[in-house]
């Protein structure tokens, strides 16, 4: 399953990238995907303080990722 991952704020600094193409072996929920990232991307250094948005909308932990989703990693926002 192919997805695009977008990273923002501190996460784009940690990953040294703001867009990554990923192929997942199986369909995952948002919470599974977060665990997957923390496990497979050592650059995150265990950083887990982020939310997930799928296709430009916040996604709760139980939502499933689908083929071609754009999955954004949203660290705590600080606008205003």
């Amino acid at each position: 399953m192919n997805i695009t991952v977008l990273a923002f704020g501190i996460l784009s600094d940690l990953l040294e990238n703001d867009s990554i193409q990923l192929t997942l072996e199986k369909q995952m929920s948002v919470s599974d995907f977060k665990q997957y990232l923390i496990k497979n991307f050592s650059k995150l250094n265990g950083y887990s303080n982020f939310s997930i948005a799928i296709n430009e909308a916040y996604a709760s932990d139980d939502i499933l990722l689908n083929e071609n989703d754009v999955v954004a990693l949203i660290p705590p926002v600080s606008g205003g």
Partner: protein
Amino acid sequence: MSDNISIKVTSCPLKLEDCYAFVEDPSCGGISVFVGTVRNQTKGKDVKRLDFSAYEPMAIKEMKKIAEESLAKFEISKIAIHHAIGKLSIKDIPVIIAVSSAHRKDAFRACEYAIDTLKETVPIWKKEHFESGEVWVNSHP
């Protein structure tokens, strides 16, 4: 976009007069405006500048959602929410919220609701630049 909502995310300087002109309305008895400005200090450290970045399409959607919720929750006529991105210096304006209403209380409340919610939900991030380095605000628990 509906004609009582103005949303903008821009790398150009924000203009107070644009927000004010948008919300002006003959039926209104008042306009409440919140202007965010870049402060020169954080926890006693001198800030040199801020750098704002956004997930722009989602930021616009979340700002529109806040505007729609404000119109539903309060007796207001029009609302403008504008946010700047890019490099900002001390005293520059990262955000303006303007609200018009028949009676002042709803304009005050909607303005406060909109800025409080923006700070919680809209995917915009600021990096503070100090003499000694830089830090993403809120990113460390």
